[in-house]
């Protein structure tokens, strides 16, 4: 029995570490600002976190496969403006949403193809895509936002189910599915295998090129999803939306315990990571701390989180 608990802690200790970090953060903020721990503010945090959290799911897949995707923020912008203009042309809502998601998925696939067929390092190909997608979004809209959508569409962001805002509901659903995919499907197994040791995966019969491409496609798809929610929330799609989203997403994944070397990580960890960032932002705002200082604090948290992670892992191996 004792051994079981010990084994469990060894295998999941890393996640408890982050979870404890999140709780400590919440308690500290609660002490400083009693308003923090109200239901409405917590929902607010969840809603603010949802978009980064959804992008970070895709990023988790990519990082587990030992890759990186710098283009997610630009894809959010491009998918958003395509979706918005489709809506404005009177295309039925479901099709317009599919267009938005499709653009995201397609951009991701292009990333994947450049990496697998073009043999480009993921950093380079997605860096290129970051600029190409952004430029396309700007060109497509002549730099102007596309605003004003139907109530039906806006419901995706403003609606509630059992008092829980729609983006939060969607985030939860996406995380459940993503967790299942990573843990219990062939695709998930292959994603870990590719990131853990690509050569061994190839020699075990894994079609690495195909699955890697799919992983980047998935990442693009989640960027598209974020674009839908963001446009609905702002009632506007902007070609300059999603700036620096890639860094927030990478930060959430890394705080959540995924290794940039690939082969390890969980979406649960990423969710906790995204919430640590969200809670921190919200709390610092409540405390009236300037956004300049906020950046310093958030950067420091990322560094400390990874330092602690490395120390824990070292402890595990010895």
């Amino acid at each position, binding site marked *: 029995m004792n051994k079981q608990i010990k084994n469990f802690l060894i295998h999941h200790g890393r996640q408890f570490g982050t979870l404890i970090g999140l709780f400590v953060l919440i308690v500290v903020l609660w002490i400083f600002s009693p308003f923090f721990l109200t239901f409405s503010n917590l929902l607010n945090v969840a809603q603010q976190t949802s978009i980064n959290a959804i992008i970070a799911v895709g990023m988790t897949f990519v990082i587990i496969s030992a890759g990186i995707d710098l283009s997610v923020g630009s894809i959010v912008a491009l998918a958003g403006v395509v979706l918005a203009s489709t809506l404005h042309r009177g295309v039925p809502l479901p099709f317009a949403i599919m267009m938005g998601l499709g653009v995201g998925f397609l951009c991701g696939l292009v990333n994947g193809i450049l990496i697998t067929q073009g043999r480009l390092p993921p950093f380079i190909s997605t860096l290129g895509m970051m600029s190409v997608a952004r430029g396309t979004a700007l060109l497509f809209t002549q730099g102007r936002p596309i605003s004003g959508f139907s109530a039906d569409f806006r419901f995706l962001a403003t609606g509630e189910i059992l008092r829980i805002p729609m983006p939060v509901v969607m985030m939860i659903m996406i995380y459940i599915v993503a967790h299942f995919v990573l843990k219990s499907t062939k695709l998930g197994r292959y994603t870990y295998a590719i990131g853990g040791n690509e050569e*061994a995966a190839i020699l075990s019969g894994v079609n690495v090129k195909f699955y890697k491409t799919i992983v980047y496609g998935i990442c693009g798809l989640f960027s598209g999803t974020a674009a839908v929610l963001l446009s609905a929330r702002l009632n506007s799609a902007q070609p300059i939306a999603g700036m620096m989203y890639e860094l927030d997403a990478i930060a959430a994944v890394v705080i959540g315990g995924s290794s940039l070397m690939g082969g390890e990580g969980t979406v649960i960890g990423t969710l906790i990571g995204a919430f640590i960032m969200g809670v921190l932002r919200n709390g610092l705002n409540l405390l009236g701390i300037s956004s300049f200082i906020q950046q310093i604090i958030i950067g420091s948290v990322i560094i400390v989180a990874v330092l602690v992670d490395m120390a824990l892992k070292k402890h595990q191996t010895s």
Partner: protein
Amino acid sequence: MIDKIMLQMFHIRQVFPGVIALDDVDFDLQRGEVHILLGENGAGKSTLIKILSGAYQKTSGLIKLEGVEIDIKNPRHAQTLGISTIYQEFNLVPHLNVYENIFLGREPVSIPGVTNRGEMIRKAEEILDDLGVAIDVHAPVRTLGVAQKQMVEVAKALSMDAKILIMDEPTSTLTDREIQDLFSMIRRLKKKGVSIIFISHRLEEAYDIGDRVTVLRDGRHIGTCDMDQIQKTDLIKMMVNRELKEQYPRIRMQAGEEILRVENVNKKGILKDITFSLHRGEILGITGLMGAGRTELARILFGVDQFDNGQFVFKGKMITIQSPRKAINLGIGFLTEDRKSQGLILKQSLQENICLPSIERFSRWGMMDVQKENLITERYIKELKIKTTGSRQKVKYLSGGNQQKVVMGKWLATQADIFIFDEPTRGIDVGSKVEIYQWMNRLTKNGSGLIMMSSEMPEILGMSDRILVMRHGHIAGEFLPDESAQETILQCALGVKNE
């Protein structure tokens, strides 16, 4: 007499959380001697040398260097004391050239901050000359072969005035000829009074180069004696504490029908007119020097690499093998040479590794059947006697021999008809070796055909039913396994004509 003793270690104890890696171990080393350190994987050899090289801090015990008590604080400190270690994975910077590597971090300077290139080159050449090796000191290290890199490591150690040189399985990736070069270099070092601790799994080598031998088992010192006063079988007994009936327990049987025929396979500059056939119940040994094309052939058979022309007949039918997936589906398994970089995903569990190639059997509509996976994994853990805390343990925590068994399990689970073993027992302990050989017997008994690529002559002779020798990408000869064939096989591999 005191002067002869270089190093003494008394009652060394090393405790890790939950494990006693070394328990009351004594060890001593004389000036100019080659002291062989023997033991199965996990016996404590690595721990002992890591204490000497400063990587670990001993829990208790006493170390004397030339009669003076020392406390080795870290690797750098060990080097300044004159103790240098050459690990299997080299510590060289590939893009720097030979002399820059030799003096890395200790460059002689002319003006502060400016390295003295002339001095470095002169000294590097001097050291390499002394070692009797011809390596261009201007060559970038990445262009050197394994054996040459090893020489550069030795040169680096000597540039730090090493009195004690620790070599961790230095021969495991060398060809026979390179091993002879290494040994002649070691003999030169001995004459200069350098003491060498030499770790190896190959007993033949121990007799070749060693003066004395120390055997460790389960973290304890079992015995130390002069090399020429102990029999091989006794050494094995000391290492495993059980009488190994035979090191190579091959049970030969009547070969069955032909299962694979390879016809005229060519790949420009790599393979030339490879033709052979494999039968059910047979182990076909393929040997040759490094670079003779063995691994390349295996990769083509498994659909990893492309080739120019040639054909395969599998169970009487012409087939093409475009990808490893296709090969696996046909019933071919490939146990790669390097388990860490090619065979296993170290960060993943036994279960995930064992089930990876046969994942189709454990999944439906892309969904994994974890229960079924677990069942199969447990079965192979039991059948292969893998020492593990369970199917969920990450394979990186297993010892070398157990890792190799996981590789074995992974391919057994595919239920293949043909198994290609590339260096199946490299760097693993005697006990695990024999178990793997027994599995080969079992596979052939069940009608599989095995291709075994190996550069270890005793293994080739001991386990094969037929032997192909490769040289420069073609098959230079076919032999039957016979003790007396050893010499002719080697001559064939080297391309030496027998008058």
